[in-house]
């Protein structure tokens, strides 16, 4: 049996794991989170699919994954790649080495955050960030929420929060009307996506939707009190309890980079078979292009089939895969941040939140590497995951290479040799039971 390891239990990883296991592979699916579903299906209940958007699709894949016999390991963080065909994982305070013959990377995406004065105040979160906190039990009914930034996620989040009783004070999309109109026309080939957008807008009809507007400043002492928005001419201040602000999504490339996968134009280079530049390593979903749920499911199924050696079956997905990859490029173009956003951060605005490095301190640096060495920008616990995309946009710095550990890890995890049998619980073959 081919041993397949899948990293990331969102839609792409669930589809890949289920399909590979159905095809006879011994599959282990890892995720940092306590449950499957990734960000889009976070908190979805397979037994109550009507309660969440895309709930029926989650229920379907959840059942299929369980029936497939793939093993799911929650709460597992990949921290290193200590030897060929081995990943080191931290789980519940212990480390373990997982070996594989085929590896499928489905590491998903995160929001792009761009700094503006006041953006570090408690009460300001990503759009997906606030939605995730609400799914994690934060009461939102009656709270005044401003949704801002860019991307289709804004409307989806505003709709989800409105359903929970939040008072949406406005949705401010930095992309201009002409850009959105052009993008809307391309959606003619994706009628279901158009329908979904229309449904979200209907659910948020009480709130103004303002393309060509963006946040310039957040005001508050110890927590958020109001935000200032503009369209370049008019300026408005809006009192609110929460600001949900993210500028579309950026892929999680750290693990693919650590494995040596080639990155092209900001994404993992993967061919029609989801094969990366590294033999035996496949990539599916957002890391190959931000395309959302449909692309993730299609690419995940292809990766799972190819990893299992079923090339013929994978071919049926090719037309959909190509169409959705094209859609991903259109999304990036439509929701690319406008140049005015580069001027928002003032000299004393923090850019690197882990180390409190201000814009003024970074202006003297020529490269991201120089900034790391001179200012500690990107050297804190998040390891540049938040400030990296921001400095790339602000200063044009390329994302520096990654080094292990990928996340803060215990010394015992870092010090253990890959061959060591002594460390607890020791190297584990995929397919063996994991404590």
């Amino acid at each position, binding site marked *: 049996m081919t041993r397949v390891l899948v990293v990331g239990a969102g839609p792409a990883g669930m589809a890949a794991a289920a399909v590979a296991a159905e095809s006879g592979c011994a599959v282990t699916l890892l995720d*940092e*989170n*306590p449950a499957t579903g990734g*960000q889009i299906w*976070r908190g979805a209940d397979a037994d109550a699919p009507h309660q969440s958007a895309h709930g029926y699709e989650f229920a379907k894949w959840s059942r299929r994954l369980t029936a497939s016999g793939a093993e799911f390991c929650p709460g597992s963080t990949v921290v290193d790649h200590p030897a060929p065909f081995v990943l080191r994982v931290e789980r519940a*305070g212990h480390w373990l080495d997982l070996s594989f013959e085929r590896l499928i990377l489905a590491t998903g995406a*995160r*929001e792009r*955050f761009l700094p503006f004065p006041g953006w*570090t*105040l*408690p*009460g*300001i*979160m*990503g759009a*997906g*960030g*606030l*939605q*995730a*906190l*609400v799914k*994690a*039990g*934060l*009461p939102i*009914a*009656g709270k005044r929420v401003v949704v801002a930034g860019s991307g289709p996620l804004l409307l989806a989040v505003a709709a989800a929060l409105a359903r929970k009783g939040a008072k949406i004070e406005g949705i401010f999309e930095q992309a201009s009307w002409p850009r959105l109109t052009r993008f809307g026309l391309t959606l003619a080939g994706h009628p279901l996506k158009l329908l979904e957008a229309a449904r979200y807008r209907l659910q948020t009809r009480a709130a103004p939707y303002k393309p060509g507007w963006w946040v310039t400043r957040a005001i508050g002492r*110890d*927590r958020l009190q109001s935000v200032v928005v503009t369209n370049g001419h008019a300026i408005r201040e809006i009192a609110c309890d929460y600001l949900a602000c993210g500028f579309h999504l950026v892929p*999680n490339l750290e693990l693919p980079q650590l494995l040596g996968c080639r990155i092209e134009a900001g994404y993992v280079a993967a061919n029609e078979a989801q094969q990366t530049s590294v033999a035996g390593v496949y990539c599916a979903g957002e890391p190959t292009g931000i395309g959302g749920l449909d692309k993730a499911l299609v690419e995940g199924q292809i990766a799972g089939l190819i990893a299992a050696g079923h090339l013929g079956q994978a071919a049926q997905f090719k037309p959909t895969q190509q169409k959705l990859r094209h859609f991903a490029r259109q999304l990036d173009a439509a929701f690319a941040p406008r140049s005015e956003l580069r001027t928002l951060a003032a000299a004393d605005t*923090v850019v690197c*939140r*882990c*180390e*409190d490095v201000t814009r003024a301190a970074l202006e003297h640096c020529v490269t991201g590497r120089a900034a790391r060495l001179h200012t500690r920008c990107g050297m*804190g*616990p*998040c390891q540049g*995951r*938040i400030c990296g995309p921001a400095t790339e946009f602000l200063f044009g710095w390329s994302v520096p290479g990654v080094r292990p550990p990928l996340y*803060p890890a215990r010394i015992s995890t870092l010090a253990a040799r890959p061959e060591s049998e002594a460390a607890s619980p020791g190297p584990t073959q995929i397919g063996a039971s994991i404590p």
Partner: protein
Amino acid sequence: MDELTQTFAIAVNGIGVEAAAGMSVAAALLRAGIPCRTSVSGEPRGPLCGMGICFDCAATVDGEPLSRTCQVVCVPGMEIATQ
């Protein structure tokens, strides 16, 4: 403040804070208006990404430092120390 059901207490810096079944520690802190951490230059910080990436919600949970509180579910009697 809003009404929760099935509530219990967690201790944050030795003071009782209301939490509910299934609620993340970050959500409980944000609801109570308590910053998760103080930044290196002294600013109060709360959760940003909500998905375990940014570490802005990091705190000590039951003795485990640098825990991402958005990924930790509250249990009765849990002890949190903000950093």
